[in-house]
């Protein structure tokens, strides 16, 4: 522990005052909504009294909502689609980000500044706008790919229907995510002192060896963090498929879990089931993140 990290002597008042705004906001907009979602997820409408004159009353229903959620074939199908989407989007986003970061870090790369800036630009484009742009590039009547295919006498392909829809949606997320992750990985590559691999270079190691054996292990923690954020982002995908809906009939109202939660809450007015699915999705994300952190066995968040 260096002197810089040593903390000021134990005190009460001042730190609590500094934390107060954050704590109030945390309680109001994170803790209470979580508690409320949990509460709602155990409540439901029940008909009491029986017979034709039974009253519909809100009451405790135990785990009924969760049973309903996990036995709902639509939600399970939505989770399946989410998995397919995630299996495409997460590794490709991270893979491209790492590859670009390593290439940028090579000596004697031409136009590195231009490429770095260009690849980072999609970060500034909101997901909804990105979907709008890609949607038109996919749409057969405005797609440049189809224009070329038709000119050379081949029929166009419809990338918004059938199994190719998954890579099409994932591509929008990859496009939006590569640049940001690339910059994080690139800055941590720049943080490695060059003498670490100057020696290897003098020993005749190829750039490939240096990347694989020295650079990638050293940016491991950054890779885990970017992976974690990519994963969390994937599990809450909503804007891209929802925005694509007007352009394709292949995306249903319940295409991914969050779309289904939205429909349950606002179209069907079934708040209990929406709350139960929200809780399940949040818990699932937490569990997946913790497993990822445990498996990689790095103290990625640094403890304290």
């Amino acid at each position, binding site marked *: 522990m260096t002197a810089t990290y040593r903390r000021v002597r134990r005190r009460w008042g001042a730190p609590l005052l500094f934390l107060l705004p954050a*704590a109030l906001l945390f309680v109001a907009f994170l803790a209470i909504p979580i508690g409320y979602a949990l509460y709602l997820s155990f409540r439901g409408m029940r008909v009491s009294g029986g017979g034709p004159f039974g009253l519909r009353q809100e009451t405790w229903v135990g785990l009924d909502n969760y049973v309903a959620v996990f036995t709902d074939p639509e939600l399970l199908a939505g989770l399946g689609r989410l998995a397919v989407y995630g299996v495409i989007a997460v590794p490709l986003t991270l893979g491209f980000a790492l590859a670009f970061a390593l290439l940028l870090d090579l000596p004697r790369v031409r136009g590195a500044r231009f*490429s770095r800036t260009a690849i980072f630009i999609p970060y500034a484009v909101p997901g909804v706008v990105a979907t709008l742009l890609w949607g038109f590039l996919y749409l057969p009547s405005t797609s440049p790919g189809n224009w070329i295919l038709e000119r050379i006498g081949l029929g166009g392909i419809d990338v918004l229907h059938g199994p190719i829809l998954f890579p099409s949606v994932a591509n929008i997320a990859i496009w939006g995510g590569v640049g940001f992750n690339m910059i994080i990985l690139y800055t941590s590559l720049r943080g490695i002192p060059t003498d670490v691999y100057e020696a290897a270079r003098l020993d005749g190691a190829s750039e490939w060896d240096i990347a694989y054996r020295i650079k990638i292990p050293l940016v491991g923690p950054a890779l885990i963090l970017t992976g974690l954020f990519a994963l969390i982002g994937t599990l809450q995908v909503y804007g891209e498929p929802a925005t694509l809906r007007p352009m394709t009939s292949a995306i249903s109202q319940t295409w991914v879990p969050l779309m289904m939660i939205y429909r349950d809450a606002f179209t069907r007015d079934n708040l209990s089931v929406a709350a139960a699915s*929200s809780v399940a999705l949040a818990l699932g994300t937490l569990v997946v993140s913790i497993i990822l952190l445990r498996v990689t066995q790095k103290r990625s968040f640094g403890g304290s």
Partner: protein
Amino acid sequence: MSTTTTPRPVGTRRLAAERSRPAGRRGAVLPSIVLFLGALYCLVPVVWVLVASTKSSSELFSTFTFLPGTGLLENLGDLFAYSDGQYLQWALNSVIFAGVGAVACTLVSTMAGYALAKYDFPGRQLAFYAILGGVLLPGITLAIPQYLLMSKIGLAGTYWSVLLPSLISPFGIFLARVYAMSAVPTETIEAARIDGANDARVFVSVALPMMVPGMVTVFLLQFVGIWNNFLLPFIMLSDERMYPLTVGLYTLLSKGSGTPSLYSLAIIGAAVAIIPLVAMMLVLQRYWRLDLISGGLKG
């Protein structure tokens, strides 16, 4: 036996051979090309929307997709005239949500991060774990309970309903803590205290100036995060005049299926919407301390 020679001389010889190769630039050609292709992939949709925004609605579906059209001025006129200038209102709303939200969030995060990094107090560990939990929690799953609670207290549908939840960012607090730990030396704080400064004064005149680069990073991350947010304002707001750009463009697009003129509006709207943010990113890029994000991992 020649096979028993140690590899070292071979290695040195190869290095010598590489050194003697003229210019030595060949090795970087392939990486440059791959990076350029990546840049192209990232720019194509942006170039497309800029080109498409010049097309009139009849040209949109008839001419080659990357061929500029003749309708730019007309499209711009239509865009700003749409529903009595609603587009400008959306843009203004986005600026308010993202600007006010990010400034306030940065202050809240900086204070909290500084307290967590530089003070030892009961409950500090608990607060830190609460923030970690918040980082891992997909915030968007909270949007529906947040909406229900907001409507209970009568705030749903107001600016506050979008602004207030954006003020808390566990990740922002986490970054501010990382930055305070590395950028504000405890000795300096103690020296200021010996000089008679109280905690508030130490924070404002000693710690805050040292934390500016970290604050800029938190501000930019939060600004882009709020600007790009869709689901929260989509759920919270019902009055179209209060929409930010993301939700406004979404409604244009979903109304547009069937009416090609609205497609043109959505395209010019998207083109105009991305220009200021891309410009801001390009200008402020150098002030980003994104190494913070990875640097925090070594803590």
